[in-house]
């Protein structure tokens, strides 16, 4: 029962996540680049949609986590698995900066790269493959250094 529940939750959460990424419009890299183009605020052509996407997502997650994490355990698992890392180190800062350059160049992040795969175009496939290669490299690098 626990294994079936676990599987259904993962599939259902993924479904909601994919729907959210697509419906919100962030699956379109041009929309993300348009948000990141803050110089457009002065000219009145800035697209601030991402403020609502992130704001809505964080607000619901704050409420949801507030309720869920007060329970003794999740419904279909023994424990909550959350990061206990506290250090604000060079790895966090440098990694986030590298991520920012890539995100600013293309306008897609790992989640939207996967969601964009359902459009039969070459660009999402190429970008997603590069992201997976980057994750693999990053995992080698992070493990080697720790």
């Amino acid at each position: 029962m626990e294994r079936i529940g676990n599987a259904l939750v993962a599939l259902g959460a993924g479904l909601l996540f994919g729907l959210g990424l697509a419906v919100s419009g962030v699956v379109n890299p041009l929309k993300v680049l348009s948000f990141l183009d803050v110089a457009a605020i002065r000219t009145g052509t800035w697209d601030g949609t991402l403020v609502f996407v992130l704001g809505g997502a964080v607000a619901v997650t704050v409420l949801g986590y507030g309720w869920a994490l007060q329970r003794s355990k999740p419904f279909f698992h023994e424990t909550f698995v959350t990061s206990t890392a506290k250090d604000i180190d060079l790895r966090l800062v440098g990694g986030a900066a590298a991520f920012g350059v890539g995100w600013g160049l293309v306008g897609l992040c790992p989640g939207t790269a996967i969601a964009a795969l359902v459009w039969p175009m070459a660009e999402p496939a190429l970008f997603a493959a590069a992201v997976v290669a980057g994750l693999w490299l990053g995992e080698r690098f992070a493990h080697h250094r720790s």
Partner: protein
Amino acid sequence: MPTTFTPLAGLIGGVLIGLAAFALMAGIGRIAGVSGIITGLIDRFPRDRVWRALFILGLVGGAAIARAADWAPTPVFATSWPVLVIGGVLVGFGARVAGGCTSGHAVCGIARFSPRSIVATIIFLSVAMLTVYLRTRVLG
């Protein structure tokens, strides 16, 4: 490169993303961080492959439903192929080294009030804005 401001669609999509993060935590106790979930699938020592694969499968399914129902914009790319590859590698590498991406740090981490996630989000957001500025307003 102006696109249309669509706050209602953005908010509905954001709420769906939040519900997904909530469901994954309440149901199986996991952070809905896409870069971490994929890494667990491709790692030398795969960690809990089943839920990770199902989450990614669901993500693709959700996007496919939105596309079929015409609820989502068609992605438009303003990027040449070499830049797509360089950007993708930087996104993957940076997310892994920083321990999360837009979903793991900017949504789930901020919602847990994690100082690491708040710092990571401020950095990647400002670096991305600077990148766009340099590329379109200075070099372009």
